Every structure is written in structure tokens, then in C-alpha cells.
């Protein structure tokens, strides 16, 4: 079976102006959404207390709210996944009591008006100092990952490729976060992990394409850089489609069957894989061409393949 019957020869780069406009619009929209809506930061970053309980039968949310209000809790009550699962969020406060007591009292207040037993499923408490640190670590992780990738690509390819790869990464991160902010998916630690996985995936895609470009420059000495890039995209197109499909298959399984907690993770990755695939073709390659990549940039790397011939 094949996605593409014959050898394709699509002129991807003829649309690069359009893509540039499209990407710019995406980024502007993302930044606007991030500025206006902000991210729906989860407990990991805001601090506070979250309590998930399972009811024997679906409760009336408004009753639960009223109950908690009567007990003196300033809280947000939502269902979680199913109607019998309730999540109570209590924002951080100048707590005069330890969180241990807080969650116990909330549980007591919740069980008051219920026949049968409610079941504690999950309690999370994050102090404000931890939240700030986690945010800082997340941002640092992304920056260091970018620096590491930049250096590696510079070492294996050339600086223009580094700029292209990092530009694509930046594009993917901003747009993914923009989408997250637009649909207001809860932004927590697992979503940060997902964004970093997107970084990994998008890189993977970009590197595969760059590798082909590096290989093709010496092969098609007579052609213009635009043509070489076009050919390379076409040659790797079936692989790009195939890998995206398998990854998306697996991610859909996670999205539909992985449960509520992994939902945000899977969603972020699905968005990221789609954007990452697009950005390898348009952002990374366009950046490469705009920086004036030419066959002279890669002359000495040409021998690279020869030393690898002895490997399996």
C-alpha cells in the first residue's frame, strides 16, 4: 500500500510566501489569544488545593456548591470525566490551617448531604512557592532544549540549519500554546511534558528533511537551492505522512481511552504533531532559503556518508 502512487513533484516552495503569511497570522493570533485569554493554568502553577471525589450517583452540582459555601469554602466545583466524579478546586489563600486539615474538612462537608459513601479519589495541594518554581523550570527546560538543539544541529549541519530548526521549534511552541489558550485546556505539568514532546517530534521531522537537503545539495549541483529543497520535501513526503499517521493513531488511542488525566496531554500532542509537520516543511525550509543556504555551505559535510558506510 502507498499513500502516494507515483513520485510526487509538488512545488511546495512556490507557496512559501503564502505560508509565511499564514504562519505570521497563526503566531499573531496565538500571541493575541495568550494575551487576552491567557493560559488556563492548572494547580501545578497556581498553587491551591484540588480534591476529586467519586459519588455513588450523579450529584446536583449546584447542591455541592451550596454545601461547600455553607461550610465556608471559596471553591470551584466541576464534573470530571463522568457525572459521578466531582472536582473541587480551592484557590491558594493565606492558609491559617494546614492543607491536610483543609482537604479533610472539604471531604466531611461533601459527605454530609449524600446517602452512601463518597470516595476520595485524589487530593493535590501545591504551595505557592512550588508553583513559581515549576513555571520557572518549565521555561528553562524549553530554553535549554533549544540551545542544545541549536548547538547539535550547528555541529552536524551548519548554522543556517540551526536557525531554521529553532525557528520551527519556536513557531510550534507558540502556536501550540496559542491553541491551548484558545480552547482553554488546563495547562499543567503533563501538558508541559507534551509541549516538550512536541519539540522532540517537530525536531525529528525537521532533521529528517534537513538530512535529505544536505544529501541532495551535492547530488543536484546544477539546481537552484529552492529546487533542491523542493525535491527533498517531495522525497521525504511519504515518510512524513506515514510517521504522522502512526503517531496520530497512537495519540488518538491515548486521547479517547487514556482517561481524563491524560486528555490534555494527548490533545496538546495531536495539535503539536500537525503543526510540527507543517512547520518542518514551511517554517524550517523557508527560513533556510531566506538565510541564503547554498551548496557551498555543505561541501565539507559531503564526506559524512562515506564514513558511515561501514555501519549497519
Amino acid at each position: 500500500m502507498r499513500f502516494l502512487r507515483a513520485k510526487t513533484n509538488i512545488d511546495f516552495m512556490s507557496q512559501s510566501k503564502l505560508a509565511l503569511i499564514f504562519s505570521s497570522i497563526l503566531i499573531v493570533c496565538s500571541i493575541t489569544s495568550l494575551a487576552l485569554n491567557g493560559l488556563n493554568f492548572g494547580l501545578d502553577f497556581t498553587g491551591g488545593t484540588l480534591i476529586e471525589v467519586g459519588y455513588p450517583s450523579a450529584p446536583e452540582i449546584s447542591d455541592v456548591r451550596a454545601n461547600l459555601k455553607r461550610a465556608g469554602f471559596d471553591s470551584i466545583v466541576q464534573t470530571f470525566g463522568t457525572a459521578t466524579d466531582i472536582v473541587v478546586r480551592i484557590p491558594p489563600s493565606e492558609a491559617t490551617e494546614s492543607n491536610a486539615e483543609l482537604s479533610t474538612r472539604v471531604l466531611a462537608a461533601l459527605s454530609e448531604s449524600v446517602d452512601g459513601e463518597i470516595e476520595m479519589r485524589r487530593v493535590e495541594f501545591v504551595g505557592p512557592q512550588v508553583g513559581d518554581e515549576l513555571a520557572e523550570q518549565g521555561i528553562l527546560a524549553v530554553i535549554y532544549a533549544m540551545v542544545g538543539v541549536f548547538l547539535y544541529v550547528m555541529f552536524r549541519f551548519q548554522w543556517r540549519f540551526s536557525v531554521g530548526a529553532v525557528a520551527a521549534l519556536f513557531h510550534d511552541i507558540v502556536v501550540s500554546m496559542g491553541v491551548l489558550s484558545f480552547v482553554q485546556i488546563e495547562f499543567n505539568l503533563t501538558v508541559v511534558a507534551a509541549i516538550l514532546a512536541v519539540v522532540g517530534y517537530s525536531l525529528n521531522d525537521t532533521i529528517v528533511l534537513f538530512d535529505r537537503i544536505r544529501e541532495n545539495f551535492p547530488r543536484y549541483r546544477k539546481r537552484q537551492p529552492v529546487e533542491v529543497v523542493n525535491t527533498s520535501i517531495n522525497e521525504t513526503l511519504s515518510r512524513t505522512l506515514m510517521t504522522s499517521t502512526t503517531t496520530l493513531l497512537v495519540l488518538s488511542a491515548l486521547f479517547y481511552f487514556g482517561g481524563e488525566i491524560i486528555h490534555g496531554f494527548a490533545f496538546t500532542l495531536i495539535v503539536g504533531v500537525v503543526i510540527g509537520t507543517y512547520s518542518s516543511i514551511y517554517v524550517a525550509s523557508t527560513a533556510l532559503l531566506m538565510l541564503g543556504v547554498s551548496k557551498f555551505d555543505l561541501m565539507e559535510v559531503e564526506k559524512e556518508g562515506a564514513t558511515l558506510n561501514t555501519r549497519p
Partner: protein
Amino acid sequence: MNQYSVWRYLLILIIVTVGFVYALPNLYGKDPALQVTSARGFELPSDLTANIDDALMLEGISYSSKERQGNRMLYRFADTEDQLKAAGVLRDALGDKFIVALNLAHATPSGLRAIGGKPMTLGLDLQGGVHFLMQLDMDTARSQQLDRFVDDIRAALRAEGIRYVSVRHEGKGLLAMLRSAEDRDRTMNILRTDQSLQGLNIKELAAGETFGISATVNEQQLLVLQQTALKQNITTLRNRVNELGVAEPVIQQQGADRVVVQLPGIQDTVAAKKIIGATATLEYRAVDENNDAFTAAQTGRIPPESRLYMDDNGNPILLKKRLIVSGNQLIGASASFDQQSGQPSVSVTLDGVGSKRMLDFTRDNVGNRMAVVYIEQKPGGRKIEDVISVAVIREPFGKRFQTTGIGSIQEASQLSLLLRAGALAAPMEIIEERTVGPSLGADNVAQGFKSVMIGFVLVLLFMAIYYKVFGLVANLALFTNLVLLIALLSMLGATLTMPGIAGIVLTIGMAVDANVLIFERIREELANGNTPQASIRAGYEKAFSTIADANITTLIAAFVLFLFGTGPVKGFAVTLSLGILTSMFTAIMGTRAVINLIYGGKKRVRKLAI
């Protein structure tokens, strides 16, 4: 001709076999078991196993195996009924000195265990349990240290016969006021030379009407203080967790001033939080009999050597600032009923220093009153101090005595547990808590397993349809990859969490990529008119540098995640990195070996099923 040398096939065979063997323990379930440890964390006595055997034999309970694991004995039972019966029997037979805890032990066969085979540890999100991140409250620790210095300086000055105006704790330092320049010089000298007073930055205050010295605890001393406090707290937390009887707890230092406590599988999370988070200690203080507490409370004029407390009934009481004995000098505590009054009480045993001090004090103060102050540190530096009992000293006592005035026998037993386990050297605040109930854990396992299986099967089907024979070979590699990854995670003792499962799923998706790259290359080579054998060789060779570059960049990202991530992010990074490594092996070497076996030996291959 495409053929691997024999040693290469052997190497692959060995790696795959080892992988399968070490992944095997994950297929076995768990045995109901009992875990016996010493209550104070001591070595287990050599006659213990004989005693246990006798006790169980008497009741006609048999265990299926026993083993010693460091400082604990593990007994496996055929079913939970036997386990629960045996727990009751052993608790009675062994008494207070040992802790008998219910446990679920891995049912890995002994042959596999002998070579170090063990199943993956499930994270708290998968098996339920409590995770705490606790931070040392350094401000309070510093202030406690300053109080100790104040006491010591006063004692040293008294010993040298220097009369001081005042020595007191002031802000973040301490202040000593003396009567003359000569006294001040002598004091400076003592502060510089006395061994027990090291660790202070001392400074003479500008001469004025009084002669003063100010001092602050120096940074180095604070660092030492922080380290020792953290170490002692970890020990204390271990003792407490031990008392709770949790199997496989994790208590670890994180960073300079934090401790992670993880109690997997614990059911009563509320009680666990109480015990772990409590920073209760007792102090024994003399009642100030020379001044009237009510007048002091009304006028606000509190004698300098005393402090004003409120007792349970809200009446003021003046207690001497000088401690008789504190919780640190306590070596044993147990809950009981007082024989005379029938009230719940805690009987306390003191160590050598403590009992001497208690004896000295009570001998000189028969007829006077002594108070017990219960101190609990709350987050944010707030302190609760309750005078729980005030009693007249009837006769001198030292090593052992009883404290009454405790509300209920439950409170008495909880207090004695806390006292036994020791006080925390410095208060700790819970800054992060994650509790997962057992039902949610089970749901997570079920959902995780289901989504991995569905994703896996979808990919297998798709690959088989898309690449035919080569697809089947890739599927074999994919399956082996999963087994190797599980084996590695088991061998390294890594903890499998929900994000970890997501990492595995993502690895499956990406492991396919290597094969896709190779197979697409082979198709290209075939399309260019090369022979099948040459195409296979060129496909693998040309795809290699692409795969290597792509995987190394992803590894860099995963490595950064591992360095900066905590908890769930780390788990994801570990599985992702290991998955990349195993997939490089199976997708390149593994598939090549199988392809070579299928096509490599044949002289003439007309067509590849790709």
C-alpha cells in the same frame, strides 16, 4: 548478499533473551504478605524468626515463604485470610518492639528474583498513595538555635562570674548587655574561645551608656544547622513511617532544604498526613510559684525569667523560661491509663541526661508544680502551645514517669507515637501534596493499559498493511522494543507513572519512524532501478545517519526534560529516552537481522514484499 556475521546474530539473540527474562516478572501478580520490622529501626534479633515460627505454628497458620530483606522479614501467605490472621497473632506475640505491617509482595518466582528480576514499580498515580514535598522552616530553626545560644551564653557568663544586664534574642541575632568595658572584653574572649559557642559573628557595639555585644549566627553555621536538621528530620520521618507500617516508603532529600515522602498503597491517607505532618513535641517546665499569673496577665508585666501561657481552661499560668526536659531527651513513650485516676496517660522514659536533669529538678522542687507543654508547629511559622497538664511534684523522679491530662486514649496513643518517633529538629511545612485514592489508581492502570494496547494494535495493523512482509518484521521489532523497554525499566527500578505510559505510547509511535525511514529508502532505491539486495543495503545505510541525527536531537530534548523536570515530567523523560535507545536497537539491528534471514541468503531475489 546481505548477511550478518554469526556473532551479531548471537548478540541480538542474547540481548533479546535477557530482555524477555527481565520483563517476565511483570507478568506475575502479588502475594499477600506480612512485613516485620523493629519499631526503633534496629537490627532484627537472631531469635526472631524462631519466635515467629513458633507463634504461627501454635495457631496452625502456615506461610508459603519467608525471606530477610535487610532490616525486615517478609512472610508470604497463600491468601489474605491467612495473612490477616497471622498479622493478629504476630502483633500479640511480638509486642511493641516490632511492627507487623500488611504488605503485598511481588510474586516473582524465586529463580527470577535470584538474578535480580523484579517488576516495574508503579507510581503513586497508578497504585494509589500519598506524596508529600516538605520544606524545612529555616527561620524557625534559626530562631531556635539563637535561643540555645542565649541559654549557653548566660550559663557561660554565670560560670565565669560575670554579671550581665541582659542576654537576649533580638530580631535575627542576639544582644548581650554588660556592665563595664572590662566585662565586655572578658565576654568577648569567652565568645571567641568557648567551644560550645562557636558559629557566631560577634561585634562590639559602639560604646555608650551600656557595653553591648551583638552577634548573629554565621552562614556556615546556618548551613551546618540546615544539614543536620534535615538529616535528623529524615530519620524522624523514617521512624514515623515505620510506625505506620507502610511497605516500600520513599523518604528522600531533595535539594538543600526539602524532603520527599512517598507512601504507596496507603489507604487511610488522612491519618498518614496527620502523623507525617505533625511536628509535635513536649516540654517540661517549672511553674513560676513566686509570681501571680493573673496579675501578670492583667498588667502585662511578666517577670523576665518566665513566660505567660494559657492552660486548657483559659486560665493564665506563668512558666519558667528555662527548660527542664524537652522531647529530644525522650527515648520511649507509650499510652496507658493512669492506675489511680483511670485517665488516659502517656508514660515517658528519658535518656541519661534527661533523667539526671529531671531528678535534679524534682529533688529540689518537691511540693512545687511542673507543667507539660504540648507544642505543635503549624505551617507559616505559627506555633500552638498548650499546657496539657500541671501537676504537683510529690516525690523526686527521673527516668520514668507518667503524664496525664490528655483528652482521650486515642490522643494519648497518637501523642506517644509522635514522641517515640522523635520530634522534628526543625519544623517542616508541606509545600506539595498529591494523594491518589486506590480506586483512581486502578482506573489509571486499566485506562493506561487499554490505550497502550489499542494504540499498539492500530500501529501493528497499519504497518502490516502498508509494508507487507517488511511491515511484519517491523512489528516484530516493535513488540521486542516494548519488551526491552519494560525490561530496562524493571532492571533500573524506574517507577512507571501515567505520563510514563504516555512516554511508552509515544515511543511506539516514534519507533515506527526509524523503520519507515528505512523502508521508504528501500522503496526509493527499488524505484531507481536497483536490485533488491542492493536496495536493502543502501536503504539501511542511507537511513542510518538520518535516524541517528533525528534520535539524538530528540534525546537532547528528553535529557533536558529529565534535568529540569520533577515528578511526572521526569517519568515521561525516562521512558522516552530509554524508548529511543531500545528502538534504535530493534528498528535498525533487529529488523536488519530478520530481513537478512529472509532475503539475505538467497542468490536471486526478484521482488521484495514492501
